[in-house]
């Protein structure tokens, strides 16, 4: 038989390593593939933060485990099926993200979640520190305006709270709402980043959902950084976005209180 030892024929001799090869190597060097975790100071007490190759995979308040790393590792294994070993150093950017309240620069391992859950968390990640958005806003922004309840459930399954700030998502009537780690923790986190919770609750009780400025003619959600700059004398209250629009106000481009198409 004639063989043409062409580069293409030689290239066909390239193979992948057999299945299980990586595991075999990792076993031999004593590194069973596992997540690793660190204990870091968070905005509301210490946090256990687990991570792997793909990114950060879990965040949990250390207090929930009596500050015991072993208890956290056990819990992590039950939740993810992966062991968690203490790491020498936290993942790059973690400390900065916790300090600034901006988790957008980190990578996350959300592989156990559905595409919808990932979309919800991705949008939630964009909410700036010190501000809150209603569940309905998240639903609308990811193109599923009717899935408000599903957004709530997805946020309840957030494996990386604090970093993906599900504590910044509140009820559509403006009340603080529930939180997977408990309402007191939600309030502590929001307070730590400068949210005036009492004021938000007062506005919610009065049925006020939007604030406008009669000097700029712009209306915002109450926690928007632009709304907090409105001087009391120029602050106008609205119960609905429609009322604001019909009064000649335009929605803020930062907090997008209504969908884009209503803006024009």
């Amino acid at each position, binding site marked *: 038989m004639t063989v043409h030892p062409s580069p293409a*024929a030689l290239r066909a001799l390239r*193979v992948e*390593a057999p299945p299980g*090869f990586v595991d075999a190597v990792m076993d031999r060097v004593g590194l069973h593939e596992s997540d690793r975790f660190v204990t870091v100071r968070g905005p509301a007490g210490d946090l256990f933060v687990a991570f792997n190759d793909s990114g950060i995979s879990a965040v949990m308040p250390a207090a929930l485990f009596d500050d015991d790393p072993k208890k956290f590792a056990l819990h992590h294994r039950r939740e993810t099926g992966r062991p968690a070993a203490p790491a020498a150093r936290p993942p790059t950017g973690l400390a900065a993200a916790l300090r600034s309240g901006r988790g957008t620069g980190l990578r996350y*391992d959300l592989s156990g979640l559905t595409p919808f859950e990932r979309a919800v968390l991705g949008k939630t990640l964009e909410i700036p520190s010190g501000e809150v958005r209603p569940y309905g806003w998240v639903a609308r922004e990811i193109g599923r305006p009717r899935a408000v309840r599903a957004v709530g459930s997805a946020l309840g399954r957030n494996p990386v709270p604090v970093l993906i700030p599900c504590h910044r998502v509140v009820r559509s009537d403006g009340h603080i709402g529930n939180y997977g780690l408990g309402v007191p923790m939600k309030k502590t986190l929001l307070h730590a980043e400068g949210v005036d919770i009492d004021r938000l609750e007062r506005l919610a009780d009065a049925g006020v959902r939007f604030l406008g400025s009669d000097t700029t003619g712009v209306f915002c959600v109450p926690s928007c950084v632009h709304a907090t700059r409105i001087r009391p004398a120029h602050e106008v209250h609205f119960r609905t976005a429609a009322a604001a629009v019909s009064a000649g106000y335009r929605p803020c481009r930062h907090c997008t209180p209504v969908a884009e198409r209503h803006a024009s």
Partner: protein
Amino acid sequence: MVALRSDTAVLDGLADDLDAGFGAFVRAHSGPVYSTALRLSGSRAEADDLAQETFVRAYRSLRRFDAPRMRALESRPWLLTITLNLWRNRLRHAARRPREARDAPGAEGADPRPGPEAAAEESETSRALVRLLGELPEHHRVPVVLRHVVGLSYAEIASTLGCPEGTAKANVARGLRRLRELTGAAPHPVSRRIVHAKEAP
């Protein structure tokens, strides 16, 4: 979510935390290392062993590297140098061992690539080619495998073999020419490629 990471990202992972980043490093380079080991040794069992041992040695060395040295690593040449040394040592130690094991036709499992027909044909061609490769002297076989099977650049081959780039190029060309001579048919329709790769004498 992240399927493939660039070499820089993999090395950054190593430098950040060797134990945490080593899995990605093994995944990124297991194909080239295993392919080299298989095409040099000719047996899957031996290739598995050689390739695993390569990464075990690499891990031990990396434990002594500092972060800047890890980031500056030329991964493939560095790893393949280890593979080559391991392979040469074994050849030396096993010089008395009979050769049949390496040339046994059954040693090559079918390659599950294109359609069943093409695959059958390809594996037959491949088996023949593997036999021919085995007949090349080491100083020709290694450069041909590194260049055409694994797909290393000439600079990487030179770095792996510790020779000038020109020498690497010349040995690849000579090896390929020798391979064609071994097939029996002297001047080939693909000879233009030889001219292209050939160095001035």
